[in-house]
């Protein structure tokens, strides 16, 4: 029997960009026509606060959803979801960013940014500091698109927190802001590429110009004249509306 795949976008990405959700699902469906999709939180924030019992119940409900869809291998776009699922060892779990080089980019995207005058600094997500395949996948994708990139001194397995980690933003906002400012200062160029929507929000809060890698994949070519998409996650109303829209996209696409 064929392996059944599922896609899990996480929380911050659907809250950031329903368009990216839509296009990513479409891309995956081209390869995996039987694709299932689960939009739910993995419970990482609950875990970070130290709420052990709540976490058990919440993560359990996610496991139920994945099992309901009879998913054998789940492809994840959020680094925290990835780690939570890997730790639970319930399913085969793979990062979308590792899967991209295996699948290859659609022909029309290859080299699309070859003429761009932007040099992107790469910010790696700290929860996957030790997952080299993800770092490689991101760099492969950027190279395929044709973007020029540069590494900060603290990169890959030495990467630094964006400032969002540990749920410290509501607890100690002043400290979180200083961590964000410092991470932006680490970047050798003005333009920053990330692969976590929360990291992107942090980079914007720290005064940087940041794009999600899916913005670069599915969106217009970024040049020196481009402005980064607005910090949607900073506005709860817009973020929840987007989350709802993403749900609707999934409802519409997976039939």
């Amino acid at each position, binding site marked *: 029997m064929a392996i*059944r*795949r*599922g896609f899990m976008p996480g*929380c911050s990405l659907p809250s950031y960009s329903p368009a990216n959700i839509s296009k990513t699902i479409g891309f995956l469906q081209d390869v*995996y*026509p*039987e*694709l*299932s*999709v*689960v*939009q*739910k*939180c993995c*419970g990482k*924030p*609950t875990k*970070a*606060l*130290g*709420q*052990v*019992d*709540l976490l058990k119940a*919440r993560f359990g*409900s996610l496991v139920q*959803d*994945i099992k*309901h*869809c*009879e998913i054998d291998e789940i492809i994840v776009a959020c680094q925290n979801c990835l780690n939570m699922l890997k730790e639970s060892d319930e399913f085969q779990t793979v990062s979308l960013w590792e899967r991209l080089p295996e699948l290859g980019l659609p022909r029309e995207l290859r080299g699309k940014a070859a003429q761009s005058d932007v040099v992107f600094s790469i910010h790696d997500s*700290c929860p996957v*500091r030790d997952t080299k395949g993800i770092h490689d996948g991101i760099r492969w994708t950027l190279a395929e698109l044709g973007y020029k990139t540069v590494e900060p001194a603290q990169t890959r397995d*030495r990467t*630094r*927190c964006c*400032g*969002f*980690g*540990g*749920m*410290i*933003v*509501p*607890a*100690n*906002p002043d*400290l979180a802001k*200083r*961590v964000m400012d*410092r991470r932006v200062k680490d970047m050798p160029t003005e333009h920053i590429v990330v692969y976590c929507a929360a990291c992107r929000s942090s980079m914007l809060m720290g005064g940087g110009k940041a794009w999600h890698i899916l913005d670069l994949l599915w969106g217009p070519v970024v040049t020196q004249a481009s402005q980064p998409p607005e910090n949607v996650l900073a506005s709860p109303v817009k973020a*929840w509306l987007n*989350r*709802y829209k993403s*749900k609707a996209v*999934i*409802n519409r*696409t*997976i*039939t």
Partner: protein
Amino acid sequence: MSVQFTGKVLTIATEIANNCQGLEAPFCQAECPMHTDAMGYVQLIREGKFDAAVQKIREKLFLPGTLGRICAHPCEKVCRREAEYGQSISIAALKRYAADKADREELWDTTFGHATGKTVAIVGSGPAGAQAAIDLRKEGHRVTIFERLPVLGGMLRVGIPAYRLPHAVLDFEYGYLDKLGVEIRRGVEVGKDIAIAHLREQYDAVILAHGAHIGMMPRVNGSDVAGITNAVEFLREIAFKRQSNVLGENVIVIGGGDVAMDCARSALRGGAKQVRLICLEKECDLPASKHEQESAAAEGVLFTFGWCVDDFLSTDGRVSGIRMKNCLAVIDETGRFNPRLGGDTHELQCDTVIFATGQRVADIADGMLKQTSGGRYLVDKDTLATDVPGVFVAGDAAGSTIAIEAMALGRKSAISVSRYLQGIGLTEGRNFALENSYKSKFEVPLPPDVVDLKRHHPNIMPAERRIQTFDECDLGLDDTTAFKEASRCLECECKDCMTECLMLNDFTHCPGELFSVFLAKGSIEAIVPYSCNMCNQCTLVCPKEYKLADAFAGMRKDFVKANKGKSPIKGHGAIDIHQRLSFSRAFTIRRKGRK
């Protein structure tokens, strides 16, 4: 809210509190009996912040220029560059450089506490007595030093020759005592002019720090003739007159330590034509520092190793030569000083003999206090208290052998006296280990880019000019060399996580401190664990790879448990709502793909 912290949190916290390298002093600082922050001032010298460097030294030492010249610098023996490459940092020379460059009275901290109404008498103004006087004066006690000589400094002034320590340097630095308002009575000999019993009546406490100023001479036949003296008397005479009445032209110094070198080199400067040093030891076992031995040799001092004076020859009541026997071994099987002599004999001519064979402590207590070897008073080694209440001992009289140790004993005696005056137990809650040299447990791997860099040496006056004068012969480090030398410091401190993590700096100096305080109090402000980004960057740079995030995560769980399942942080109410929505039917969906 009372939080019960769980086993896992306590285990990690205990491990970090006990072993975090951030709490370990650098080797040099731990070894220094006064715990001078050598790394700190060496860094400041490298940064060109000379005033700050002097102030850093003066936090612990009132004699930067003096100790920069004559300290036996135990710090250099344990310097990591010494351990790794056999080339320690020139810590003492850098201290002197900073002092010469920047020390001036405006930088001195001359504040002292409110008057306590208590009085302390200190016998002797050497490094021990002076240090005790400073510490007690700073606490507001009235302190009087009784000094037998017309000059201050004890052996620093009348034992160490001026070519190693110019009097002007010492006198300037001793000016600090005046600034603090320490009363000094020169030319008063306790035990002769005033009895100890009298001091005990007149003062609330007494510290004996009168040093070891009796030159010892072994019994040798025929020594009751002119031309024979001992190091203490010879060097004192030299200190006052730059000359000695006993000194002839052909001098023999007996002894193999640094004091013997001082005598030999002073004799040359005092006008002797030939100076020969005779010692029991073989050349390789000489107790003197290599530097002193080499300097003496360069100046023309002759050495005869492995011989023992057995008999004096004399003409017209003055010594005219010595008869020696060869020495087969200095130390016996039990490790004691017990020279074994052979059958060979040899005669040498001379007109002067100086014994540099040890010093004793004079008994000025009129039998009130028990004495042990070398005349040292019997004291409690931790508190320096004697059997007589209110009477304490410091410095060489209590067993120190170098100036910096004497100062540490001076400080120790002051701590004891301070407690005694306040009626606090002498030992209660006192960490004696920190009052003396201790071994640092610092163990962090050398950074991979460290290379062996050669030690820089001060400029030295040529030997032929040196012996013409009592002027200082070590000219010190020049600016360029001092900078290079200061730059060699490996900075043996572990601050890697503090450099990496912004959060820790808001709450502590190092994780060891943070978790020690947590364990001692059994509690912690919730904001501390809830400010950790859980990014593990601390673990990444920690030489011990301590997982602080795990400790903080564990604490969070315990906080939640004690707070009815919720985070104690106000702002986390928003996360609660966020999480509820993120699992609600309104914002979640599961869609099974087609078969």
